[in-house]
C-alpha cells in the first residue's frame, strides 16, 4: 500500500525539508519503519530505544488517533494519510502558591526515555551496565538526572567526583569560596596548585577531566532565601554538603517546599551523620532537629577540626544515596539516620519519624515560605567592642618595638600554642581564665589574643566585667599578626 506521511515543521530538517512523503506499508509500524529507513535521524525523535512511540508523538491515520485504533499495528490502505502530530504540553509544574513544587523523581524516568548513550559512554559505564540493578535503563536515568550539590568543600569533593564518575548528566554546584591551604587536608577535588583560585572554576575543570560526557553548572553565590528556590527548582535531587546551620535549614525548607529529596550529611571531628530527608515519603530535617542548637554550642570544622578522611566517607555515602534515588531502587536512608564514629569505627542507624507537628512538613504547616535563617539560628554578628578596647597587630608591634610594657595573654588551647605563639606571651586557656585572675597584672596593659580574635573578645568582656580596664583585644588574632607583622609565624 502506498500511503502519504505528513510531518510537523519541526521534523522537516531531518527530511531535506519535505513535509509529505510517500511510503509503502500495510500498517502504521511498517510505514514509519520505511520512513525512518529513509531518514534515520527521525528514529530518536519518534521512538524510544525499545521501539515504542515517544509519549509526545501522536500518530493519526486520516483523522483518527492510532492510540484509539490498533496503535502501531493499525492497518493502512492505499491513499491513506498518516500524520505525525506533536503532543504539545508542559506547564509550570507548580501546585498552588507554595513556591513551586517540582515533578518529583518520576520526571527522571520520563526524561530518560529520550536519552541515549554513545559507544564511549557504554564502555565507560560498563561496570554499571552489567549489574542487573542498574543496566542500560538505570544508566540512562543517571544521565537524565540533575543533582545539585550545595557546598564544594569536604563533603562536596567526594560527592561531586563520584556523581560525575557515575555519569549523572547534570551536576550543579553552589559555592563562593576560593581554595585555601587548609582545605587540602580533606577537599580532594583541589590540588596545591589551585590555592587562591575560585573553587567552582577548579571543580568544573576537574570534573570535566574526569567525565567529559556530563554538564557542570556552577552557582558562584551564597545560597540565600532569595535565590534558593530558583536554583533548587532545576534539580531532581539536592545534596547538602554545607557546614553551617542556617544553610542546612534553608536547604531543608526549600526542598520541602519544592517537594525534592535532600540527601543530608554532616561531619565533626570523628563523627558523621547521613540521611535522606524527603518529606513526600518521610521525615525532614526539622522533624529530627526542630530547633537549631544555641549559637556557639556546636563548633564548626574550622573551630573544632575534622579528620580529613571523614568527609570522604560521609560524602561517598551521600553520593550512594543520591544514585539510589535516581535509579529508584534499593533502600534509601529515608526515615533513618546513619551515625558514624570513625574513632570507634562504628556505624549505627536510628529511626527518624515524621513529626505530625513539624512546622514545615507536618499536618498543619506554619512555614509556607523561606524565612531569615541567620536570625532563626541566632547567628547575630558579634557585638562590637569599644574602639579603645581593640588594637591591631601593627599597632601592637609598634608599641612592643618602643619597649612598652605589655602583658600578652594567649587564651588558646595548649596544642594551638605549640603551633605558634607570640614571643613573651603567657598561655592561659580561655576556660581557665576565671580561676586564674590573680595571675594577671593589674598595672601593665593586657593584650588578649587567640587565633582570629573571637575567643579573646569573649575573655575581654569577662575581664572588663571583673574590673580590668587596661585591656585590649588583638584584632584578627595571631592569624592577622602572621599576615601583617611576622610571616614567619605559621598560619593554621
Amino acid at each position, binding site marked *: 500500500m502506498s500511503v502519504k506521511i505528513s510531518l*510537523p*515543521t*519541526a521534523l522537516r530538517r531531518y527530511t531535506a525539508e519535505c513535509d509529505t512523503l510517500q511510503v509503502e506499508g500495510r500498517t502504521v509500524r511498517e510505514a514509519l519503519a520505511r520512513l525512518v529507513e529513509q531518514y534515520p535521524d527521525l528514529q530518536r525523535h519518534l521512538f524510544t530505544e525499545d521501539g515504542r512511540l515517544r509519549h509526545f508523538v501522536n500518530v493519526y491515520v486520516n483523522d483518527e488517533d492510532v492510540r484509539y485504533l490498533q496503535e502501531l499495528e493499525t492497518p493502512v490502505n492505499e491513499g491513506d494519510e498518516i500524520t505525525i502530530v*506533536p503532543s504539545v504540553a*508542559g*506547564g*509550570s*509544574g*507548580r501546585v498552588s502558591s507554595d513556591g513551586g513544587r517540582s515533578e518529583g523523581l518520576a520526571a527522571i524516568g520520563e526524561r530518560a526515555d529520550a536519552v541515549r548513550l554513545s559507544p564511549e559512554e557504554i564502555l565507560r559505564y560498563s561496570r554499571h551496565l552489567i549489574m542487573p540493578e542498574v543496566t542500560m535503563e538505570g544508566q540512562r536515568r543517571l544521565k537524565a538526572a540533575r543533582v545539585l550539590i550545595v557546598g564544594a568543600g569536604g563533603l562536596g569533593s567526594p560527592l561531586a567526583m563520584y556523581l560525575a564518575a557515575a555519569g549523572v548528566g547534570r551536576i550543579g554546584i553552589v559555592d563562593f569560596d576560593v581554595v585555601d591551604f587548609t582545605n587540602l587536608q580533606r577537599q580532594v577535588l583541589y590540588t596545591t596548585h589551585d590555592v587562591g583560585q575560585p573553587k567552582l572554576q577548579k571543580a568544573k575543570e576537574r570534573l570535566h577531566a574526569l567525565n567529559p560526557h556530563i554538564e557542570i553548572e556552577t552557582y558562584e553565590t551564597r545560597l540565600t532565601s532569595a535565590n534558593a528556590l530558583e536554583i533548587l527548582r532545576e534539580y531532581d535531587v539536592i545534596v547538602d554538603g554545607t557546614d553551617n546551620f542556617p544553610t542546612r535549614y534553608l536547604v531543608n525548607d526549600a526542598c520541602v517546599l519544592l517537594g525534592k529529596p535532600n540527601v543530608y550529611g554532616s561531619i565533626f571531628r570523628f563523627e558523621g551523620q547521613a540521611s535522606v530527608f524527603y518529606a513526600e515519603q518521610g521525615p525532614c530535617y526539622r522533624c529530627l532537629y526542630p530547633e537549631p542548637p544555641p549559637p556557639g554550642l556546636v563548633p564548626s570544622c574550622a573551630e573544632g577540626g575534622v579528620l580529613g578522611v571523614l568527609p570522604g566517607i560521609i560524602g561517598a555515602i551521600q553520593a550512594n544515596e543520591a544514585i539510589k534515588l535516581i535509579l529508584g531502587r534499593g533502600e534509601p536512608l529515608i526515615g533513618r539516620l546513619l551515625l558514624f564514629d570513625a574513632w570507634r569505627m562504628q556505624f549505627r542507624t536510628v529511626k527518624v519519624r515524621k513529626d505530625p507537628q513539624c512546622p514545615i512538613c507536618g499536618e498543619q504547616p506554619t512555614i509556607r515560605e523561606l524565612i531569615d535563617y541567620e536570625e532563626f539560628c541566632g547567628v547575630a554578628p558579634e557585638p562590637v567592642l569599644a574602639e579603645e578596647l581593640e588594637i591591631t597587630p601593627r599597632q601592637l608591634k609598634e608599641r612592643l618595638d618602643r619597649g612598652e610594657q605589655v602583658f600578652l595573654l594567649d587564651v588558646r588551647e595548649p596544642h594551638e600554642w605549640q603551633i605558634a605563639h607570640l614571643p613573651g606571651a603567657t598561655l592561659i586557656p580561655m576556660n581557665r581564665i576565671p580561676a586564674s585572675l590573680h595571675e594577671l597584672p593589674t598595672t601593665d596593659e593586657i593584650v588578649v589574643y587567640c587565633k582570629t580574635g573571637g575567643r579573646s573578645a569573649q575573655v575581654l568582656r569577662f575581664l572588663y566585667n571583673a574590673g580590668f580596664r587596661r585591656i585590649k583585644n588583638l584584632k584578627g588574632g595571631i592569624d592577622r599578626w602572621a599576615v601583617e607583622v611576622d610571616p614567619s609565624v605559621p598560619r593554621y
Partner: protein
Amino acid sequence: MIRLTIEQLEAIKRHGERAYPEEGCGVLLGHVDGDTKIVEEIRPTPNARRDSPHNRYAIAPAELLRLEREARARGREVIGFFHSHPDAEARPSSHDLEHAWPWYSYLIVSVKRAASESVHSWVLREDRSRFEQEEILIG
C-alpha cells in the same frame, strides 16, 4: 531568533492574563526566513488539561492537526507555541522539557497575580538535555 509584532506580544500576554489562574496556551503560525521565525498569527487554543489547568497545559492533538492543516493551506506553518506560567517565572519547567519538541519556539509568559510580566522564548537543544533561550525581535 523569533520575530513578532508588539501587538502579537500583547495578545499573548492578554491571553495569559485572561486564563489566570489557569495556564493559557496557543499556537504560533508563520514562516521561516533564514534563521528567523516570523510570527504571522497568534492562535489561542483551549487548555486540554482539565485535571490540573493551573499548573499544566496541553494542546489537543486534534486541534493542532486542524490548525496545522489550515495553516498549510494558506502557506503558513506551525513555528512554535506559547503558554503562561501563573505565579511562576517565564522559564521552562522540567515538565516543559519532557514534552518539548526540537526546533519549535516555546514562548512562556509569566503572569503574576493576574498581571503579565516577562515573556521569554525557548528552543530545545538538539540532545534534548535542556532549553536554550531564544532572542525575541519585536517589530
